[in-house]
């Protein structure tokens, strides 16, 4: 029954998307959006019903659905049951659909009479609805019913797309992938990424609408700028949560591996970051109009490419639990998006884009240009590194690998240049910048940064790249703080109270200051990446009970094994005493463990992490042989700065969204009062 409801909802989604596109197309002539109301209601209902019926089937243990039988089991705890709705491919497309129809509804609410741009954007979004719901109806159908259970009564042996087919429900299911049911973050990380991914289709839809209808000007950008920032913030959050997840849960002692699937999320982030910056220049100064169209199309295409890389199983990666047959479909969609959008761009851009000349290259606009060049170069390099093994295997039949050493080496210089631009850019005047003005603003921060570098070197940090990153990161932060204090002092000199002027400065230009908060976050992240990768102490040790081993400034003792059985898994672990470096004083007890899940023989290591102000101690159980224990012990200096920096970055993005929203309200109130007067 649930299968029928869900499948009908999916079909309704396809139909609603088609109606939205068709009626939107018709309505762009009249400018009357009232005919779109029904299709919007249909697709929103379809998305919600599809998602709710999948969740209902999972929670109700309805194993007559193949998806439920393959990806959940009776012993799965409730949290992971809920998250199972998007833990595997078919379900994740349903979640994608839900987020997408949410955005359709939101855009729909903001489209008024005569708004041809918005109506066209809804028509474009309707096309994406058709694609994703079409995918759910065909290649990636979560509502397939099980027609034959395995002999043991566990799991589904064969299935049918036809929801009224004769059902043979298994007694139990296989349960989620052990990697995915090991930690609660599984429930949070993908939805955040999806809000980011899908959110980026809104500016894309507006851009396509503007080009298709030859609507000149920056309206498409004005209306979607804050969308982009929200989507970007969620994408940032999703990536940071993913890093945290792999650090806390996966046990390979890292948070970023330059894995293809990680790159797939990072690529749209880089280009979206470039887009957010160049959008500021277009809105402020009218330049880079064509470039912004290119960036928004590229961002959208990269989200599709990312989904393809993640979901097609084309690339060998630690994330390859997502293999499937939707690869060709996504590849075709990607080709159509690229050909269609850039074709439209080639045909129409000259009709809607004007390109005034820069007043001077030595200006804020010039730094923005450098920033865009660097960010797109960064993205291009990561793209090449990710796609190179694929391309070489496809065209030359050779197998090669591109991994961390390549990415670290190539992107380090770009990161240096970006940090430098990030330090100088925000205090460089618009239009034309005199050297003396810029110098006055950076002299003090530069001295502070260099002094911090000297202190770090004296304290024993001898790695040149690390010290350089620390100097540049401090420079970024110090420049922003100096500029902020300067602005506050101007107000204080005018007689305002210090605290009031602080909030006034922040509130006056929320877009700018939100951006600066994000810059501080990114600088912190850069510093933390440098310290945790270059200054890490890493040891693979073998111990028997009672052994002590010195690792860095710590000493590790194997106290004894422990094990317990939980409803869905068997846990085996080791009790480890963390001691001071002379092995005399105990600091803490740690419990790294290995989990074995029912229905899977793939053990999942869960490390134990002790977070401190100076460093993190990270112990992962790598294997047991007789009474001998293999432990990976890492000491990561300043690890918490990475998480703090990520949080600050996201906060900055959300602040600029919330702040500009409040500002707009105030402005519209003022206008209303003026009209009344």
């Amino acid at each position, binding site marked *: 029954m649930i299968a029928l409801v869900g499948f009908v909802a999916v079909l309704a989604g396809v139909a609603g998307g088609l109606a939205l596109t068709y009626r939107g197309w018709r309505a762009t002539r009249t400018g009357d959006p009232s005919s779109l109301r029904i299709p919007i209601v249909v697709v929103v209902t379809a998305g919600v019903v599809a998602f709710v019926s999948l969740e209902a089937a999972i929670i109700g243990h309805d194993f007559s659905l193949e998806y439920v039988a393959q990806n959940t089991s009776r012993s799965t705890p409730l949290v992971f049951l809920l998250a199972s709705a998007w833990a595997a491919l078919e379900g994740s497309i349903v979640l994608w659909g839900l987020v997408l129809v949410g955005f359709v509804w939101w855009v729909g609410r903001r489209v008024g009479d005569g708004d041809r741009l918005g109506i066209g954007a809804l028509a474009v979004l309707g096309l994406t609805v058709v694609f994703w719901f079409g995918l759910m109806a065909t290649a990636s159908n979560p509502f397939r019913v099980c027609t034959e259970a395995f002999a043991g009564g566990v799991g589904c042996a064969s299935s049918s797309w036809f929801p009224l087919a004769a059902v043979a429900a298994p007694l139990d299911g296989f349960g989620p992938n052990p990697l995915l049911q090991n930690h609660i973050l599984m429930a949070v990380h993908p939805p955040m990424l999806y809000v980011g991914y899908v959110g980026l289709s809104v500016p894309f839809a507006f851009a396509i609408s503007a080009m298709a209808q030859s609507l000149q000007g920056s309206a498409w950008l004005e209306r979607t700028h804050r969308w982009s920032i929200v989507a970007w913030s969620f994408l940032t959050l999703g990536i940071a949560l993913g890093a945290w997840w792999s650090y806390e849960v996966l046990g390979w002692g890292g948070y970023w591996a330059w894995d293809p699937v990680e790159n797939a999320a990072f690529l749209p982030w880089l280009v979206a970051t470039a887009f957010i910056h160049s959008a500021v220049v277009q809105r402020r100064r009218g330049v880079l109009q064509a470039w912004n169209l290119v960036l928004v199309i590229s961002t959208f295409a990269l989200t599709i490419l990312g989904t393809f890389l993640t979901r097609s199983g084309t690339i060998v990666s630690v994330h390859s639990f997502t*293999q499937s047959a939707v690869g060709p479909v996504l590849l075709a969609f990607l080709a159509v998006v690229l050909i269609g959008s850039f074709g439209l761009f080639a045909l129409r851009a000259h009709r809607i884009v*004007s390109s005034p000349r820069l007043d001077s290259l030595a200006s804020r606009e010039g730094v923005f240009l450098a920033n865009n060049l660097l960010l797109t170069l960064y993205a291009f390099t990561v793209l090449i590194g990710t796609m190179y093994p694929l391309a070489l295997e496809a065209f030359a039949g050779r197998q*090669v690998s591109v*991994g961390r050493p390549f990415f670290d080496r*190539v992107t380090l210089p770009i990161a240096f240049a970006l940090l430098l631009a990030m330090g100088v850019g925000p205090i460089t005047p618009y239009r034309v910048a005199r050297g003396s003005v810029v110098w006055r603003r950076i002299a003090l921060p530069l001295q502070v940064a*260099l002094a911090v570098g000297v202190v770090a070197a004296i304290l024993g940090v001898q790695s040149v790249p690390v010290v350089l990153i620390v100097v540049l990161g401090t420079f970024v932060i110090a420049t922003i703080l100096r500029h902020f204090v300067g602005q506050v002092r101007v107000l204080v000199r005018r007689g305002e109270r210090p605290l009031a002027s602080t909030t006034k400065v922040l509130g006056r230009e929320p877009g700018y200051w939100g951006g600066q908060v994000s810059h501080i976050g990114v600088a912190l992240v850069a510093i933390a990446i440098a310290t945790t990768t270059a200054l890490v102490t890493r040891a693979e040790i073998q111990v028997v009970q009672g052994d002590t081993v010195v690792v860095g400034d710590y000493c590790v003792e194997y106290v004894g094994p422990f094990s317990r059985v939980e409803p869905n898994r068997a846990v085996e672990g080791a009790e480890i005493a963390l001691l001071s470096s002379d092995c005399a004083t105990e600091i803490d007890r740690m419990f790294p463990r290995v989990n074995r899940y029912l229905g899977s023989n793939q053990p999942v290591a869960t490390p134990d992490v002790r977070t401190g102000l100076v460093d993190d101690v990270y112990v992962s159980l790598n294997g047991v042989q007789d009474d001998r224990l293999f432990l990976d012990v890492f000491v990561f200096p300043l690890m918490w700065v990475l998480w703090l920096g990520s949080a600050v970055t996201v906060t900055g993005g959300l602040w600029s969204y919330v702040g500009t929203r409040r500002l707009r309200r105030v402005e519209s109130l003022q206008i209303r009062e003026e009209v009344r007067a």
Partner: protein
Amino acid sequence: VSRRMVNLGLLVGLVTALVIALWPAPDSAPSHAERTAALADELRCPYCSGESIADAPSAIARDLQDFIAEEVARGASDDEIIDFFVATYGEQVLLDPPATGWGLWLWLLPLLGLMAGVVLIAHRLRSDTVSPPAHRAVVAEQLAAARSDLAELEQQEATGEVGPDDAVRLRGTYEAEVALLEGLDPSDPEPTDRRRLLVGALVLIAGVVALTVGVAVVADDRAPGGLITGDTGATSLDDVTNEEMELVIAENPDVLGMRLALAGRYFEAAEFSDALRHYLYILDRQDNAEALANVGWMTFLSGEAEAGLRFVERAVDVDADHLPAYWFLANIRFFAFDDANGAVASLERLLAADGLPDDIRAEAQSLLAQAKAEA
């Protein structure tokens, strides 16, 4: 001026201090451990999920890391070790491909991208401003922008951000722009050619369908291990031939995991002498349940029932969860020693285990019935 000099002097002093503080110590030859770690970072673990030997949390990666450490201790140079890995596992063990041949593109393309970007910007800076026929809404937008430019410029001049010369020049530009825009007679946007757009969209959608079908067909025809079908081979032992595995094992005799896998293949294929050779090598080094059980079974098949039974019993002692051992035990006890009760005990232990394949379960159940009947 003096303050500026102080600033500059301070800066120069700090830079000098930084350079001195970072000056490399004279004896900075890397230690053995550092060299091992660096090599393990550069090399991909051949049978893991694309991770480096240092990162991959598997027994094979651990063995390979030990192997590197031994080679480093033996005095092998970095290049020798890397060459050995490339010769054994192919060039895909290199996570940072050398910049020669095809690998050159990996470095050239980003450089070309950078150059293209610089050229594009330079070209844009020199070319004239281009404007499409101005529509009413856009003229209003541009006029507002030019006026706010003028206002902002005034503010910037007042605070000293923009110097007087620049201000005069820019004001001239903006005022000319305002005058030009005010003099324009803006048009309404001409209706777009909707029919052509519709045809284009339809062609595109036809393209989607054709491409999807085409790619799907091509992908279906590909051998497993191809691009679209995923699983590029190197991750799975299944795609490695026995001969290749023999080579790898000959090079790394103590990588026992792979030896065990190969011996398992010979055992499955009933090539017992080859299997025995590898299992005995393993048993010389460690008590491995799988090796013990399979050696026991082969010994039993060769007619030495008692010796075989001892091997299999030891396998169970080593690892009580090694299920095949119980199956062997039951068979040996029942058929060679007429020990129906012993067979029943082994079979019940086997059937109590989770995750038993269905065919084995069925066979075990039928043997259990037979044994119970005799007992």
